[in-house]
């Protein structure tokens, strides 16, 4: 895309819609214990809200929302959250990704496992969001030059 859309209507509309998509994506991630959803779906919706601004606004504007240089490091952080939860459980005496052994003693064991699921869903959502945005950024990079 050589130039972003010149129309202020499109920019205004996507600026209004984008936060609601983002909010719903967060809801899908954090409510995945009780309703359909989870890290992958919620991460895709967060990516949709970011890409909407990227399509409609110019680079100076969308760099304010989510910097290009954060794409790959945050994706790696998402994978590391998942791996880290598994490794902590392994270091504290359980199997890999056995949430029973996470260091949260003030809760009953079933709740600890629910918290472990929540942690890895956050990691998955972060990785999916940033990687989808990173693929878009890298595909468009040459045309901008």
């Amino acid at each position, binding site marked *: 895309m050589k130039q972003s859309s010149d129309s202020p209507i499109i920019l205004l509309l996507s600026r209004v819609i984008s936060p609601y998509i983002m909010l719903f994506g967060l809801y899908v991630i954090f409510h*995945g*214990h*009780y*309703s*359909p959803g*989870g*890290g*992958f779906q919620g991460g895709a919706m967060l990516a949709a809200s970011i890409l909407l601004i990227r399509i409609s606004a110019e680079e100076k504007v969308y760099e304010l929302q989510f910097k290009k240089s954060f*794409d*790959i490091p945050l*994706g*790696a952080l*998402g*994978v590391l959250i*998942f*791996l880290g939860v*598994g490794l902590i459980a392994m270091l504290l005496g359980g199997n*890999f*990704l056995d*949430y029973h052994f996470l260091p949260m003693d003030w809760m*009953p064991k*079933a*709740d600890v*496992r*629910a918290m*472990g*699921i929540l942690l*890895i*869903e956050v*990691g*998955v959502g972060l*990785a*999916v969001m*940033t*990687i989808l945005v*990173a*693929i878009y950024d*890298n*595909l468009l*990079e*040459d045309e901008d*030059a």
Partner: protein
Amino acid sequence: MKIINYSSLVLVGLLLIYASLGLPYRGDTEALVNKEISLIGTPVASSYYIQNAYKDTNTPNIVTSILGDYRSFDTLGEEVVIFTAGIICFLLLSRERKSETK
């Protein structure tokens, strides 16, 4: 030639429809896939999940507790696949690398 193509398509479609008539109804307790004990006498994993998933993980959504807890290693693999795709795009397409080679 075209007639053979289309007729074979229709034949395969009819075969699939005929085969689907033999499938068990959803939620049929007599069907083999819904039994607690499999054909060879071993317990079936899905019945364990249905009976114990809420007690084990305190999560009402069984799908989430299976994907995130019992089968989390598989989910880790999926996430690594997505991350690998992003890294490959970054390595192949990023601008800094191209300017180095030129």
